[in-house]
């Protein structure tokens, strides 16, 4: 198969890659770049374990083919913390015990980031809709919803302080 050239930014770092055109973004992240935080759950875009942000919006990386990320900015769970500090979502997931087996956690965090980036003060219903594409088999979701609520508040406070 003819390889394609793809220029992309992943976790704030520029890459020039030469993948097979039928490779998925998930394959590239896990197999080529060793970014194994993004998980393989179902590989048909149903479970959300492989969720990453593409140009700031949540996407199932198992359904994205390599050529589609040309010129895009990708953020994975490994890029969520910045300057050695955890993102408020990461902190609140820890504080609310929203992590059980942890396999859904990276995808859940990325969907939650998309939500909070676009709706900084979400209602409970909006949070539920925001993570409705992410399956979790352990928690019963309550602690996850609570964690996202709390992260929104922390982000709100941070914003007020910075202003």
């Amino acid at each position, binding site marked *: 198969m003819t390889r394609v050239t793809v220029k992309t930014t992943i976790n704030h770092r520029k890459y020039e890659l030469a993948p097979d055109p039928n490779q998925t973004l998930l394959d590239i992240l896990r197999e080529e770049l060793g970014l194994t935080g993004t998980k393989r759950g179902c590989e048909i875009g149903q479970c959300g374990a492989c969720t990453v942000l593409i140009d700031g919006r949540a996407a199932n990386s198992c359904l994205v083919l390599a050529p589609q990320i040309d010129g895009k900015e990708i953020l994975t769970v490994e890029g969520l913390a910045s300057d050695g500090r955890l993102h408020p979502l990461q902190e609140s997931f*820890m504080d609310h015990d929203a992590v059980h*087996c942890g*396999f859904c956690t990276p995808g859940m965090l990325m969907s939650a980031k998309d939500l909070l980036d676009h709706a900084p003060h979400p209602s409970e219903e909006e949070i539920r809709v925001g993570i409705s594409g992410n*399956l979790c088999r352990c928690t019963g979701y309550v602690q996850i919803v609570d964690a996202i609520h709390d992260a929104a508040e922390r982000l709100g406070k941070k914003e007020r302080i910075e202003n």
Partner: protein
Amino acid sequence: MSNQSYSETNESADLHVTGEAVYVDDIPVGGQLLTGRVVISPYAHAKIVSFDLRDARRIPGVHAVLAHADIPGDNQMGPVVKDEPCLAADEVTFCGQAVFLIAAETEQQCREAERLIQVAYEPLDAILDIETAMSNDSLMGSHRRIERGDVEAAFAASDHIIEGELRTGAQEHWYLETQACLCVPGERDEITAYSSTQHPSETQALIAGVLGIRRNSVVVEVRRMGGGFGGKETQANHTACWTALLCRATRRPVKIRLFRDDDMIMTGKRHRFLTRYKAGFTGNGILEAVRIELNADGGAATDLSFAILERAMLHADNSYYIANFSVTGAIWKTNLPPNTAMRGFGGPQGTAAIETVVDRVARFLRKDPAEIRSRNFYGTISRNTTHYGQTVENNRLPEMYNQLIRSSDYRERRIAVDEFNATHEFYKKGLALTPVKFGISFTTSFLNQAGALVNIYTDGTILVNHGGTEMGQGLHSKIRHIAAREFGVSLKRVKVSATNTSKVPNTSATAASTGSDLNGMAVRNAAATLKSRIAETIAEVFSEENRSSPTFASHIVFEDESIIDGDHPERRIAFADAMPIMQHRQVSLSATGYYRTPDIGWDREKGRGKPFHYYAFGMAVSEVLLDLLTGRHKLLRTDILHDTGTSINPAIDIGQVEGGFIQGVGWCTTEEIKWDENGRLMTHSPDTYKIPTVGDIPQDFRVSLLRTDPNPGTIHGSKAVGEPPFMLSLSVWLAIKDAVSAVAGHELEPEFSLPATYEVILLSIEKLKAKTLKEASL
């Protein structure tokens, strides 16, 4: 970064939120890694007439294509009964059974090789449901029976009799991480397996078996699983054995990670049951006599079916005293994947049967079902022995009932629901309370044992190894709490290692909710050995410094990160400072611990004994809103009160209660397993098999832990929590049934099965309406 952030609750949370937590598929391996693939049977039952692997073996990049004859050891991976070949030999007995193995450099090469394997099958008749198995006398083992009293005489003397049948469905585990194993070859015949298994010792034993090597050449390590739920108790062994065979054949590291659909097709599920019941009761709703006949679909091999049926039989009483009680059980052999452990392990199926009985009794008598339930609860002084002879000690049911009825406003909401139903034609509400009493211990009594190895290093850090595995239930976090408390040190000083068969050998599965009960005690016993050594040595040190009034080792206490003479609190040394002294004085800082559950015993033949160390209790009230035109329902509110004794970690326990309950809601409502007429799984992907999403949880969800005395005889007074809350989901199932029943003014018994899918609900409503019309026209 991981060092800066830290969770008191979850020992790995910092790794999970940064993506650093390592599962089997994430372990970095050098360039030699091969991908393994399993070629499965397309037939539910067929003879393997012939096959040809030559073309497949010629594909470039393919390093091995194996059939049963290539297995150097035993072609066997049955965990208890040896009736499960590792690779099918002459016959396949279910769709999805492993027949060949391929190892290649890429997944694509594996698939190309698979296409070139030529197999001639001769299809045979297949048994695909319990009824067909019954009529063909396709019985697995023998019929089982647990009885008390004279059921027939009591039926004859009862005021009322009801009879019926209940079907409960299969359930797929749907762990987020599919079955996975990575095997790395070592010197001579050594092999290390990184397996996503709940039972590393059994995985080790079966790998040794299929390879024909000794167990001391096999190491199995489990850092964590991405969920288990029983699905990796025995069936993780399969993927591990296949991977090990390919590793041995190629002498290279090999990994098999099942694709989701393959995992769903190949692995067993929660057993579906066909249950028949008959109950005699008084005009007050007191159960006088009950007969329950449990029929389980075992699938094509035994797996853990005997123990699962047994637990179903031991939970067919749920929380109710039944003076005359007969429970019989049978496992039927079918041509479906061998069914296996899943959270509750037969308990949910047994509980669903008796809950149906009590629900029907209440409807028959036009009484409130919660009231009828409470009348039949086990007593605290009398009416407190089970049908198998165990006394229900420390019975919390009456106390929890009173609390929950009040805190959930059950009585007011019952009235409100009835009013709503009287004024709404196309919507009905339903409300139900269900209790759970769940026995804690493996019913195979000898399995109730655990080991630990605790090492202290000279910098004062502690590494705890134990036989239990982490699958998201928070076991390692609880163990860390237990160890820190025993040594009187902060959590930061304690690390729990990956589970490894070379550190703690011959362990039981992490199952039956017993993980922290058993391993926690083993860790405590190891800590006790170390503390006594440390106390003696430090008492010597203190005494040397205070010759006039020596320190007694037995008066040394471990608290506040220090080792202190209880009689002279000024004599103290920091925990970390004491450890180099231990080394200088040549005292070992490593100790094993071992625990076995005392005072339990179960006579399987007689159906009598004390199989359980204790009982865990819980209770739930759920309310639903049902759309009669579509069958769609909304879970409006659930109140749960659950008994975890003195919780070691309330955040983890509440998470287990919520998660177990919701997994149960899936079993009760949307999770429907269907096979086609050829025995092929139709619901083999999340497209068609629906586990609960966040939209399925109660709109208003109130979970609390019972404030209660410490549980006697368990680690730090705690109780097991993994499985019991699962059965609380029956409150949702019965609330839906209550809403359906409102269609006929609660005058008629709805036809109902589990899961209550929209289809089941709509059919039930239609039949009720038809019956109501018929009665009206008469």
